[in-house]
C-alpha cells in the first residue's frame, strides 16, 4: 500500500507495484490524463509534474519514491484553468496539437516559482527539457514573459 498526495488530495494505492512510474499511476489509476506519455524515458518532458514544487519527469519516477510527497499535476496547477500561465498560453495561442503543453506549463510554472531573472537565456535553460514537435517554442517564450510579471510580483508579496 502506497500513499501519495496529488493536487492536495490523499490517495491510498493498493496493488500498485512499487516500481510503477508515477505517470501511469496518475493516468491509469487516478485517471488524471492531463499528464501525457511521450517517451517513457524522461527525454521529452510531456509527463512533467511538480514534486514538492519542483518540475520532475513522472515517467521515470517510481511511485514508491514519491510516497508522502506533494505532487501537483496540470489538473492541480489551478482550479479553473486560470493560472496566469494558462491564461497567457491562451492569449498567445500557444498550443498547436497541444500534447506537450501540460508538461511545458508545469516546467514553466516551476521555473517562475523560483523567482528567476526572466529573459530568453533563462527561459531556454529552464525549458530545454520539454520538446514540442509542432515547434511552438517562440510562443511559449512569449507566454512565459507575459505571465512573468504577475507571478513574480505575487511571489514577492507572499
Amino acid at each position, binding site marked *: 500500500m502506497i500513499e501519495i498526495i496529488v493536487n492536495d488530495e490523499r490517495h491510498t494505492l493498493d496493488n500498485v507495484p512499487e516500481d510503477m512510474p508515477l505517470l501511469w499511476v496518475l493516468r491509469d489509476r487516478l485517471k488524471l490524463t492531463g499528464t501525457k506519455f511521450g517517451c*517513457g*524515458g524522461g527525454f521529452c518532458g510531456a509527463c512533467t509534474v511538480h514534486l514538492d514544487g519542483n518540475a520532475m519527469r513522472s515517467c521515470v519516477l517510481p511511485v514508491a519514491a514519491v510516497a508522502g510527497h506533494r505532487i501537483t499535476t496540470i489538473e492541480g496547477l489551478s482550479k479553473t484553468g486560470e493560472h496566469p500561465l494558462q491564461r497567457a498560453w491562451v492569449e498567445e495561442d500557444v498550443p498547436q496539437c*497541444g500534447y506537450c503543453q501540460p508538461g511545458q506549463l508545469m516546467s514553466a510554472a516551476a521555473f517562475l516559482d523560483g523567482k528567476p531573472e526572466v529573459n530568453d537565456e533563462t527561459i531556454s535553460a529552464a525549458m530545454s527539457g520539454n520538446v514540442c514537435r509542432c515547434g511552438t517554442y517562440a510562443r511559449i517564450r512569449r507566454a512565459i514573459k507575459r505571465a512573468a510579471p504577475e507571478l513574480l510580483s505575487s511571489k514577492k508579496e507572499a
Partner: protein
Amino acid sequence: MRDASKPAVALVESREVSRRRFLKQGSALLAAGVAVGFRLPDARANEASGGAASTNATNEFEPNAWVRVLPDDTIKLVVHKHDSGTGTRTALAAIVAEELDVDPFAVDVITPENPFYAVYIHPLWKVFSTGGSTSVSLEYDRLRMAGATARAMLVAAAANQWNVPAASCSTASGYVEHAPSGRRANYGSLAEAAARVPVPSAIALKDPAQFRYIGKLRKKRGAAQKAAGTFQYSIDVDLPGMLVAVITRAPVIDARVRSVDSSNALKLPGVRSVIEIPGRPDVLGGNQAGVAILADDYWSAHQGQAALQIEWDDSLFESFNSDALAAHQAAWLDSPAAHVVPTIQSGDAKAAWTHPARVIEASYSMPYKAQSPMEPVNVTAWASKDAIAYWGGIQVPSTAQEAAEVIGGFKGDQVTVHELVSGGSFGARESKYWLLEVTYLAVKTGKPVKLMNSRETEMVRCFITRLRTIARRRRSTRTAASPRCNCAPSRRLRRSNGSRVISIARIAWTTAPPRPSMRASSRTAHRIWTLAGCVMKRASRRVGIGRSATSPMCSRSSRSSMKLLTSASETRCCSAWLACTTSLATRRS
C-alpha cells in the same frame, strides 16, 4: 470518456442517425453543385447518398454534410478531416462559418456522425483520408458552398415567414434580419422551416473583401482546454473493462514467430493474456507478425512485454541494408530509365526548356526516420459479433474500414469511427498496421482494447518515413540561390528564359534492372523496391506531387519540396516500403 461510456449503443444510434441523415441531402448537394465527381467506395456510402428521402425526426436543419442547425439555436459544424495539431477543426469550421455568417467560436465543431458518407471522400485520393496539407486547399470551395447554401435556405425561410423578398433580408452572426421592418430571427428559430425550403439552384458566395474569419482568424479552437490539461486525445480513451495492449513486432521484415514463452509474463500482476498476431504480408500496408501482451494498464503490459521470450524465424530480409538502397537510388537518378515527375509547374514548361535562362539542379536525400509524433500511435477498438467501433486519431478512416473487413469480416456499415484529435502525425497516422493489429485483438478478446506504441517501438520497428533520393531541377530567372540543404548540386546549370519557377524531379524509386550479382535476399528486397517504385510511380502520375510534412527541407522551401501525394496509394504499397524500412530500422538498432 463521456462519449465512450456506451459505445455499442452509440454505435447503433449513430448508424441509425446516419441512415436518416443525408438521404434527402444527397440530391440537395448535387443540386447545389457541391458534390461532384465522388466515387462511392462501398455499399454504405452508396446507401447514404443514393437512398430515398426520409423524415428528419429531430427537426434539425441539415442542409448538407457540414451544417446542423437545431431548433434551440445550437449550431454544429462538421469537420470531416483529422486534426493532428494542424488546426483543421479551426480552419475548416471557419470556412463554413464565414459563409453561414456565424462566429466560428460560437458554434460546436463536431466530427461526422458517419465518417463514411460519400462526400467526405478525399477528392484526389478517392478514399476517406486526411493528409498532404490538402484539407484547406481542396475542401475550401465545397465548404464555402455548404455554408452559403445553408445560409440561403435560412434566409428563404425567414423571407417566407415575413412575406418579404429574400433579397431584402441580410444575415449577421447567426441571425436573419429584415432592415426595413426591423425584424430579426435567430437561425435556430428558422431551422424547422428552412428544412422544408427547396435547395436553391444558384448560390451566391461572399465577396472575399467582406470576409471576417477566412484569412483573419488568429486563434485556434481548444487552446484553453489544451492549457488546462482537459483536452481529450486519442490516448485518453478509457472504456469499461478495457485492456491495454503492447506489441513486440518482428525484428526483421517477414520474420515469423518460431516460439513464444509467455509463462513469466503471465505471472506478472495485471497481465491478462498473450496473443500472437499473424503478419499480413498479403495486405498492402499490412502488419508484421507480432506478439501482444494485454493487461489492465500500460505499465503492466510494458512489464509483461519485457518478460516475454520470443524466438523469431529467419527472414530473407536479414541482410537488407539502407546504405545499399541509398546507393541504388543515387545510381538510378542517373539512369535513363529514371522517371521524370513534374512537380509544381506554372507557365509553359515545355517552351521554357528549349531556351532556359538558368537551370539549377540538386540532389536531395532523406534517410529512413521515425515520424515521432509527441503522442505515440495508439487506438482503441471494441468489436462485437456484428459491429466494431474505433476510437482514436484515425487520419485515414478508410484504413479502419479496410482493417475491419480484412481482419473481422465487418462490412462498411458495421464500422464506426470515433475520430479524436491526436498529438501530431507527421505521417505516422497514415499507416495501417496498427489498425489491423488492434482489430485482430478486439475480435479475439471481445473486449475494448487500447493498442499503444511505446516510443522505442516507434523508433525501431514501425512504419517509418521511407528513404528517398530526389534530384530536382529548378529553373528560374529570378533567383540563383543554391539549395539550402546539405546536398551537393549534381548537374550542370542551364539558362532559362522563363520568368517563373518550374520544378522537375527525378525520383529514385523508379525501376532499375536487378544486378545479377545480388544475393537472394537482396533480390527479394530489390523486387520489393521495384514493386513499390512502380506503384508509387503510377500513383504519382495520377495524383501529382505536393509537399511533404515530414521532410526536413520542407519547412524551409515549402512549395518546392516534394513528396508523392499518395496517402492511399502509399498505404497500399507501404507493406513493401515497410518491409524495407522496418528491416533497416532493426539493423540499425
